[in-house]
C-alpha cells in the first residue's frame, strides 16, 4: 500500500486544450493517505473515471506529476504501477475457472507455482469463493464475478492501491449491500488504500472515511461525510449530498446580516466585497416551522411527503421553493413561518462557501 500524491495534475482528452473548459480534469493537487478509504463522488462526466485512470496509469495526464510514496510514477505504465482495479462491468477471463482467473496476474508476473497456489487459496477464502474455485468463471453470478475481479487484485499482496469504478452498477440491490459490507470489512482487516468511484451518495457515505466530491472536472470538496453535510464548500455539494438537498436562496447581505424577501437572517460570516451573486444555503434538517408571528419568515406550504421516519414539507419562501424536514407526528401550523437555525446557515459567494469570520 502506498500514499498517493497528485502534484498539479490535469488532463485534457484533446491534443491542444485552449480554455479551462477543455480539461476533463482541472489542475489538482492532493494526497491520498496510505490505508485511506476514499469515495470519489460526482455526477456522470465530472472526471471521476479520468482521475481513477490517471492513478492506474491507463491515462497519462497532460500535466503534473503523480507520486507513490514519494516516487514519481508519472511516466510508468499500468503494469509497472502495481495497482488493482475493479471495473463497472465484471471483467473475467471467460475460458478460465475461478482459480485460473486468480492465478492469471501472478503467472504473468512469473511468481513461483507453490507461492501462487498458497496465495490463490488465501484469496479464494477471503472472497468466499473457495467452494466454487474450479467452476468456469463465466457461470457465476454478477456479484461473484465482481468478487473475482477484486480477487485478482487482492491476490497480488503488494498492490499500491485498489481502485473501484462504480463496481456495484450491475449488482442486485440486496447483493449490493452485502458486497459493500465485504469491502468495508476487507478494508478494516487489511488497511488497503481504496478509492471508490460512485455517483450514489449512500454508497459513498457508507463506504468511505473521506469523500471527494467532483463537479465539472474539479474537486469541489474533500471531507468526512459529516463535513460534507454541515459545511458544503460549494452549492453543488449541498445539492448533491443529502436527500432532499440543501436549500439555496439568493440573498442580499450587509456585514453579518442577510436579507431574504425583506426578512433578516443572521450569518456566521461576513459577506465578501465584490462578489456578484450571494446565496445562503441551509439544509432542510435545520429549518423548523412555527406559528409564532414574532419569529421566522412566512412560507406557503405546497406539498407534504411522508417518508416514514420524518416528513418533508415543500413550501414557497418569497416565491422560491424550499424543503424542510419535520419529525414524524409534528403539526404544521396554520400560518407557518420558517425558522432557520443560525448555526447552520452557510453563505455562498459565487457558489463557493464564505468561511466563518473572514472573507475569501
Amino acid at each position, binding site marked *: 500500500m502506498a500514499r498517493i500524491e497528485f502534484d498539479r495534475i490535469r488532463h485534457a482528452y484533446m491534443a491542444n486544450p485552449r480554455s479551462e473548459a477543455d480539461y476533463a480534469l482541472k489542475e489538482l493537487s492532493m494526497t491520498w493517505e496510505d490505508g485511506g478509504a476514499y469515495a470519489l463522488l460526482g455526477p456522470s462526466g465530472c472526471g471521476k473515471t479520468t482521475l481513477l*485512470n490517471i492513478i*492506474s496509469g*491507463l491515462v497519462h495526464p497532460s500535466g503534473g506529476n503523480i507520486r507513490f510514496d514519494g516516487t514519481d510514477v508519472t511516466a510508468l*505504465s*499500468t*503494469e509497472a504501477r502495481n*495497482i*488493482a*482495479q475493479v*471495473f*463497472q*462491468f465484471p*471483467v473475467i*477471463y*471467460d*475460458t*478460465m475457472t475461478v482459480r485460473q482467473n486468480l492465478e*492469471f*496476474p501472478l503467472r*504473468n*508476473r512469473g511468481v513461483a507455482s507453490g507461492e501462487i497456489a498458497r496465495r490463490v487459496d488465501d484469496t479464494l477464502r477471503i472472497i468466499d469463493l473457495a467452494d466454487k474455485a474450479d467452476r468456469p468463471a*463465466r*457461470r457465476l453470478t454478477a456479484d461473484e464475478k465482481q468478487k473475482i*475481479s477484486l480477487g*485478482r*487484485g487482492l491476490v497480488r499482496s503488494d498492490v499500491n492501491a485498489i481502485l473501484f469504478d462504480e463496481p456495484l452498477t450491475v449488482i442486485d440491490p440486496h447483493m449490493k449491500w452485502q458486497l459493500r459490507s465485504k469491502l468495508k470489512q476487507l478494508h478494516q482487516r487489511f488497511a488497503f488504500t481504496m478509492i471508490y468511484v460512485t455517483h450514489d451518495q449512500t454508497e459513498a457515505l457508507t463506504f468511505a472515511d473521506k469523500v471527494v466530491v467532483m463537479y465539472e472536472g474539479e474537486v469541489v470538496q474533500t471531507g468526512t461525510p459529516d463535513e460534507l453535510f454541515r459545511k458544503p464548500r460549494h452549492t453543488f455539494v449541498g445539492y448533491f449530498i443529502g436527500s432532499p438537498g440543501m436549500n439555496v436562496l439568493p440573498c442580499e447581505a450587509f456585514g453579518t446580516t442577510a436579507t431574504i424577501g425583506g426578512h433578516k437572517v443572521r450569518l456566521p460570516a461576513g459577506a465578501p466585497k465584490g462578489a456578484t451573486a450571494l446565496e445562503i444555503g441551509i439544509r432542510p434538517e435545520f429549518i423548523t416551522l412555527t406559528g409564532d408571528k414574532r419569529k421566522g419568515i412566512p412560507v406557503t406550504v405546497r406539498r407534504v411527503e411522508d417518508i416514514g421516519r420524518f416528513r418533508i414539507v415543500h413550501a414557497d419562501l418569497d416565491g422560491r421553493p424550499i424543503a424542510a424536514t419535520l419529525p414524524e407526528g409534528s403539526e404544521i401550523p396554520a400560518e407557518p413561518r420558517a425558522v432557520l437555525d443560525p448555526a447552520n446557515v452557510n453563505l455562498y459567494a459565487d457558489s463557493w462557501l464564505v468561511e466563518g469570520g473572514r472573507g475569501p
Partner: protein
Amino acid sequence: MNKTWNNKAWFMVLPVLLLVAFNAVIPLMTVVNYSVQETFGNNLFFFEGVKWFREVLHSERFHDSLLRQFFFTGTILAIEIPLGVIIALAMPRSGIWVPVCLVLMALPLLVPWNVVGAMWNIFALPDIGLMGYSINALGIDFNFTRQPVSAWFTVIVMDVWHWTSLVVLLAYAGLRSIPDAYYQAARIDSASRWAVFRYIQLPKMKRVLTIAVLLRFMDSFMIYTEPFVLTGGGPGNTTTILSIDLVKAALGEFNLGIAAAMSIIYFLMTLLVCWVFYSAMMRGEDE
C-alpha cells in the same frame, strides 16, 4: 384449465406453407423423385429404388471429386480463417482509417462471382496475365491451363482473395464488441500480447468465428461459378470439385438419376458437417 379448441389459426399458416412448398419442398422432392427413377426420354419413368445411390457411393469418380472438394474446402478454411483474424487484429480500432479499411475489405465481396473467375483467368494467364507472366519471369514454370499444381494454386489464391474479407469483417465486428475494460484489466494483470489474444480476444470472437467457419464451409462446399470460369475443372479432371462434377453429370451427360442421387448425398453431407461443427462449438456455452 379450460382450453378453447379453434383450428382456424391453421389458415394463417397457409401462406408460409405455400411459400416453403414452392421454394424448398417441391424442388427438393423433384430431385428425390429423380433419384429413385430411371428414364429413357419421352417423359417415361421407371422406379429403380436405391440403385443410383448405390452406384454413386461406389463410383470412383464421385470419391475423387469428393476428395478434391474436401481438399479445397480444408485448404481455404486453413488459410482464410487465420488470415482473416490477423488482418482484423491489425486494423485500426478508431479514427479516419476505419471506414477506409472497411471499404477496402468489402470491395472483393462486391465483385460478381463470374467476374472474379474471368478476372483471375486473365490475371493468371502465363503469356499476357500479370500474375502468370510475373511468376514465369521469376523462373518458375507456371501454366494453370496445363499443370494441376498451378491450377490448384490459382483456384485457392482466387478464393482467398475473394472471401478472406468476409472473415475479416466478421472477426473485426467481434473484436470491436469487446469493452475497453477487458484490455485495461489485462494491462493491470500484466498480460502479454499473446495472453490478451488467447484469453480475451479469441474467446470473445468465438461466436463470430463459428459463423465465419460455417459460412465459408457451406459456400466453399457449394462453390461453382469461379472455378468453372477459371479452370472448368481442368486440366483433365484435376480441379473437378463436387459441384462441377454434378453439373457435368446432370447437364453434360443427362444422367438425371445419378445427378439427383449425388445432389441428395451432397446436401446431406453439408447439413451433417454444419450440424456437427455447430453443436461441437456451442457445447458448454451458456444456456
